[in-house]
């Protein structure tokens, strides 16, 4: 282990602060120690100074111009101090009674603090100006994900160079053998088109414009903040947390003021209201008996309004959306405001508008699945079936199969015995079939939940399905897009996506 730690060595502090996802909690805590050491004078803690600075940081984060300026000139001048102030400010926000039961990803003020942190870090990094550090960061940003051949043995980024033949500015040099699509950078696209490829090739290397490094690093820093915050939260004792919430007032007061003055948008990060409306409408249309209205058909606002009126959802947020729709006219206005939604089409019909809501297909051919047998229409599943005539399944085959079946709507409410019997019926066609073994294996897969939740079905990117994939470009289907999985599954995906990225 290197003797220099972030506590005393500035260069190491920068490395840990810029790449915390690559370091363990020990190093990160040493970075925090560096930050806290700024608040010790003559061997004495200076808690008031710390409190002042974190209140200053937290309240400044709520101002858009301060956040923007920090990208040009650092608001805080040391990486240790920056991570301490940003994480403590976030902890103060999370401790506000208003957010007691709120998921952090819904809290706008946390995003503001993170933005100030990310911008501040970007300008610190630029001021520190150590090319070696930039190259280390590029190694991480452009490394390809795990593949069958293991990690690339050499350096991912072999240099940051001027390449006059490609135009002005610096370029990151990445050997082809280390390259991934991550390295292909396009100019800002015109509407609906892919922008020109800015990455160039020479001598078996890719040259990526350094501007892309900045963009990718900002994304990284957002994820990094999540880790720093977690480490800080785990690091603070109950006493320290109590001290913080007892003494901090500026951030709390600022949030209270937003609430009092009705600035809800500054506090809450709402998800797209249009998306919610379309989802609820889709559910309401599906719920209407006798197919008076249906998905994929044009209907008047009045017909759709009647569907909404008749719809009685369980979820609170769905009821809220329904309650906001008070008349055909209000529904028409709401839909008109969402005319760019990918699943909504508005057509003039005489003097009135007609609206078409479509299934949330993901641009792929849907597949009716009446029996498990129908899954074999997917080319990958057909390939798997073919292979199973020759070889016993590896566990992952069973796993992929069982998970897909678990989520089929017709089995959502079935008892396990029915599912097992139906699956055994399928498996019995293969030569290796042994009733007892298959029975045990299926039951095992079904008992194998993740914290009580059914695991998500495999998607097309899953390595195990890739073994059977005919190539996405060739295939008219996609597993998640074509199969009639229930909305709950897509909700789970949305949640997984959101919690994976934010805080």
């Amino acid at each position, binding site marked *: 282990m290197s003797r220099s730690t972030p506590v005393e060595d500035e260069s190491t502090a920068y490395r840990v602060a810029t790449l915390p996802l690559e370091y363990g909690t020990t190093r990160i805590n040493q970075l925090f120690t560096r930050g806290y050491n700024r608040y010790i004078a003559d061997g004495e803690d200076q808690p008031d100074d710390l409190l002042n600075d974190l209140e200053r940081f937290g309240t400044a984060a709520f101002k858009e111009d301060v956040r923007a300026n920090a990208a040009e000139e650092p608001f805080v001048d040391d990486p240790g101090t920056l991570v301490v102030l940003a994480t403590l400010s976030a902890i103060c926000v999370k401790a506000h009674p208003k957010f007691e039961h709120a998921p952090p990803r819904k809290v706008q003020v946390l995003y503001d603090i993170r933005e100030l942190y990310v911008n501040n870090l970007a300008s610190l990094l630029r001021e520190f100006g150590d090319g070696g550090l930039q190259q280390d960061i590029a190694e991480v940003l452009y490394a390809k994900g795990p593949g069958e*051949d293991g990690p690339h043995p*050499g350096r991912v980024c072999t240099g940051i160079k001027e390449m006059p033949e490609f135009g002005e500015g610096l370029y990151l040099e990445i050997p082809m053998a280390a390259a991934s699509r991550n390295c292909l950078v396009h100019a800002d696209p015109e509407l609906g088109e892919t922008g020109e490829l800015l990455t160039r090739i020479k001598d078996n290397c*890719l040259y990526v414009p350094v501007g892309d490094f900045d963009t990718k690093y900002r994304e990284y820093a957002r994820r990094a903040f999540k880790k720093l915050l977690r480490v800080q939260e785990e690091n603070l004792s109950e006493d320290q947390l109590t001290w913080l919430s007892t003494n901090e007032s500026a951030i709390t007061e600022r949030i209270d003021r937003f609430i009092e003055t009705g600035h809800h948008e500054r506090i809450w990060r709402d998800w797209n209201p249009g998306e919610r409306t379309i989802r609820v409408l889709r559910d309401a249309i599906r719920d209407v008996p006798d197919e008076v209205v249906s998905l994929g058909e044009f209907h008047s606002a009045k017909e759709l309004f009647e569907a909404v009126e008749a719809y009685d959802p369980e979820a609170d947020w769905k009821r809220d959306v329904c309650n906001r729709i008070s008349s055909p006219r209000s529904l028409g206005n709401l839909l008109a405001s969402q005319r760019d939604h990918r699943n909504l089409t508005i057509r003039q019909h005489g003097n009135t508008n007609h609206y078409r809501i479509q299934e949330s297909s993901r641009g792929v051919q849907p597949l009716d699945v009446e029996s498990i047998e129908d899954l074999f229409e997917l080319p990958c599943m057909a390939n798997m079936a073919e292979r199973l005539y020759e070889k016993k399944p590896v566990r992952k085959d069973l796993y992929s199969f069982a998970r897909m079946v678990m989520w089929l709507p017709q089995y959502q409410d079935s008892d396990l015995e029915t599912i097992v019997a139906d699956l055994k019926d399928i498996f019995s066609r293969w030569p290796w079939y042994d009733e007892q073994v298959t029975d045990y294996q299926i039951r095992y897969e079904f008992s194998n939940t993740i914290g009580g939740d059914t695991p998500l079905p495999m998607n097309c990117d899953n390595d195990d399905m890739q073994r059977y994939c005919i190539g996405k470009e060739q295939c008219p289907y996609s597993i998640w897009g074509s199969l009639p999985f229930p909305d709950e599954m897509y909700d789970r995906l949305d949640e997984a996506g959101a919690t994976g990225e934010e805080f």
Partner: protein
Amino acid sequence: MSWRQATREEIYRYYDEEFPSYRDELPSFITAKGPKQYALAFREPHPVRKDGVPDKDFIRRDTWQTNTSGERTTATFQEFDDVLEFIRHPARNDPLGRSNFALADPDLLDKLDPCPDAVYYALDHWERPWVLLVDIDAKDIARNRAADTVSEDVDDRDDDALLNAAGILDAAPEGYPYAFEDIERAIEYGFEVRDIFEDDFNAQETMVVYSGQGVHVYLLDTDPAHRYDAKSREVLNDLLQDTYEIPIDPVVTADRRRVARLPYSLHADVCSIVLPIESQTFDVRSATPEVLQS
């Protein structure tokens, strides 16, 4: 010469008489034990020994048996002659031997000895990094050409209608979904890709192979700088398509589990030898087997 499908007898004759004479010409990585698999496609599905298992029109055979950790234990073919015997009479020389899943012995059936309509080898290779192959198909070129020239009222999802409207089905070779000019264009693209490999990717060892209905371009350098894995190959695909505007088949390029037509094997649909070529002036008609030229 005619552009037509080879008969069963012609295929047997080719592999019996002419193909062995090219054995010394085969690329050095084509050996009995190098590619992870050899594969054959048949014109007619052929039964396997076990009852209730569907007839097969495509079989893959591993060149090695492996233990549970994937290490090689026993070689399937000792010499390339064994591969040749398998190609000539697959059912009689099936490496699966007496396994239930081997092809059924034609002597015990009313069916003919199955005939290899196409012979393939796996791009995945035991001794060297996975072979890089870029596939350029005359069918794709023809389809793009048709889409560019035909007016929009032809339903573009129907390939035949499109090709018909563009006159491609009627152009020589008649009835095929491309014209000779599309094959010639594919060959030109093939040499462009070879130049790109050499100029921009520093490749030393390359090969262009006429595949019967297009070309395969190989990058065969084995040093680590050219050890492109699936992710690097995706980049290569994008560069070839976007930057150099070459109409390649990106799926084949990035997928190591693919099989490629064996050089010097017969493309039976067009009676052509899959032939390594040196120049874009290559005349496709010269790839007709000598034994079939009488």
